[in-house]
């Protein structure tokens, strides 16, 4: 406890580099584009249903990955355990979704 105390008092002396908004705005634009594409794929309505489903899931996954990596800082250092936590949740969910899809649509 007292060791923590000492360590955090030292920090303010460092001149910290602050991350600008640029990366996050780019992430926003990517998310927007993926969203628009998703809506577009559905609205055109000319392609097969299964193809649309796959595209929607893929685009959603990419958008989520971008948002979590940049906005939630998962790409930054010090995020090993958050990654393990979320990934284990994703694995459990993946198993459930496979079962639900197999059950409902097979």
């Amino acid at each position, binding site marked *: 406890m007292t060791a923590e105390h000492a360590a955090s008092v030292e920090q303010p002396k460092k001149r910290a580099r602050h991350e600008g908004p640029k990366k996050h705005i780019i992430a926003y634009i990517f998310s927007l584009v993926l969203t628009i594409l998703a809506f577009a794929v559905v609205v055109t309505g000319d392609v097969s249903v299964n193809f649309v489903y796959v595209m929607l899931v893929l685009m959603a996954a990419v958008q989520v990955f971008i948002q979590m990596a940049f906005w939630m800082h998962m790409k930054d250092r010090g995020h090993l355990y958050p990654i393990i936590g979320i990934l284990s949740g994703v694995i459990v969910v993946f198993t459930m979704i496979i*079962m639900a899809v197999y059950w409902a649509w097979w």
Partner: protein
Amino acid sequence: MAHGSHAVKRYTGIMDWLTTVDHKKIGILYLMAGGFFFLIGGLEAILIRIQLWKPFNNFVSPDTFNELITMHGTTMIFLAVMPVIFGLMNCIVPLQIGARDVAFPFLNALGFWTFFFGGVLLNVSWFLGGAPDAGWTSYVPLASTTFSDGPGVDYYVLGLQISGIGSLLGGINFLVTVINMRAPGMSFMRMPMFTWASFITSLLILLAFPALTVGLVALMFDRIFDGNFFDPSAGGNIMLWQHIFWIFGHPEVYILILPAFGIISEVVSTFSRKRLFGYSSMVFATVLIGFLGFMVWAHHMFTSGLGPVANALFSIATMLIAVPTGIKVFNWLFTLWGGSIKFTSPLLFAVGFIPTFVMGGVTGVMLAAAPGDYQYHDSYFVVAHFHYTIVGGLVSGLFAGVHYWWPKIFGRPLNETLGKLTFWFFIIGFHMTFLVQHFLGLLGMQRRIFTYLDGMGFNEMNLISTIGAMLMGVGVICFVINVIVTSAKPKTATNDPWEDGRTLEWAIASPAPEYNFAQLPLIRGYDAYWKEKREGNKEMQPAEPLGPIHMPSPSILPFIMSIGLFISGFGFIFHQYVVAGAGLAVTLACMFLRSVIEDHGYHIEPEEIQPRGFKA
């Protein structure tokens, strides 16, 4: 510093227990409450066995029998063994990693009180409208309002939902504690096995309980708000409940057994005076069991019509779990082999655990063969299997842990003679009760039915089973007497009462002082305390200078929040939504207060810390 100057809140007596955020006291609360519910669940078991001792018995009505089996299962799993597990985790894990408390002391208290009031809500059902009677698995359509229109199943839904919040909070707490608060030098691969087991168990809790939450919400919506999740007439699906329940339910049984595996590793190693054999493979096996536990849930549903492909996949996945489990069993045996063995009561329970759990495991592999399960399903063979693993396995492990750590927690060792009596009555009674149930199942005796026909060949074995249950009861009474007799003794335990302690908790006083460690210790290897002992040191080397120790403040809010949820539960059960809303409002108000009132705790100054940190 300015903030040490606010009035230090220190309560005494019952207020101390209601407001404590100290992991050691919360651990004791969990042990006491879990023990209390264990007695209730045990009573329910005795009543079940009395009803079944002869054919066509009318000791209890069929409806009461259904309530008894439902409450016995639900109470034992959620209100008895899980709290005892949490109790041991609370008392011991921070000490084993060299921490002064868990990461979130307030949430720790909240976890206890929500569990407790959820359990009270569930048991109040006996007196106010009827206990749940659709089995601990509460399958629809039996559990829907069509076939269960009393409040029983609503008590189940709300009681478990509230209790489940406590479990989830506890899981997160221990994960963060182990990740962030290990003493300097304690890398992951130097942690004791009980801590590893607690860590993986906490991850399983985090991932499994939300599925139960959704299932209970869905059942509640169907029952109370006219939802259609499980109502086929509106497009709902009965099988959905089974999937959701078992996606939770199967990991749940690994949540139950992994801590027991951790306890066995500690006890076997300590009382063989030998380092645990194959530590790395033990860790790996624990992780693998945890992971595979999420992949096998449909083995509870082989006969529900999933089809041969699904059945085959789940069958194979289930059998795979036997491999890491087998690794563990062999490692325990190799630890014992060549060790300097001392048959204390903890070791007796541990040695009783190993073959008993293996027996449960092999019947599990039998059940895992889907075609075989078509014969075993819903018979006493299944009942025998899971009692061998949960009672002969888990409960034996818990008895081992409780006897092992009692002096550390309470400052007094349990009486060895009574401990051995407990063991012998319990283990003999256990095998009498459940060994015959394998054969009853193979002969075709159905489970969850209040009686059986004469002339089926069931009579003698049921009688033996009932007598065995009575013997188990005697064993439990021996334990209760042991606890009472011991509590009257003075607190004379030394820091290392078994004299062969290997892990860090044995380096400090019994019971541990309020702040656990006067100075956080420096960890120089696995079995950290044993390592110091081997080098001739009486104590751990400190990793920091003596300084003021920060302690979190006690709070009554967790208690009140849980009462709010309890009241809200009643409101939902009896469709009194104003009451339901009022209860939730109380809980939310407490959350608001908690966020807004900044209480930074208090300090214990170095002058108050006795030399060697042995002030209780």
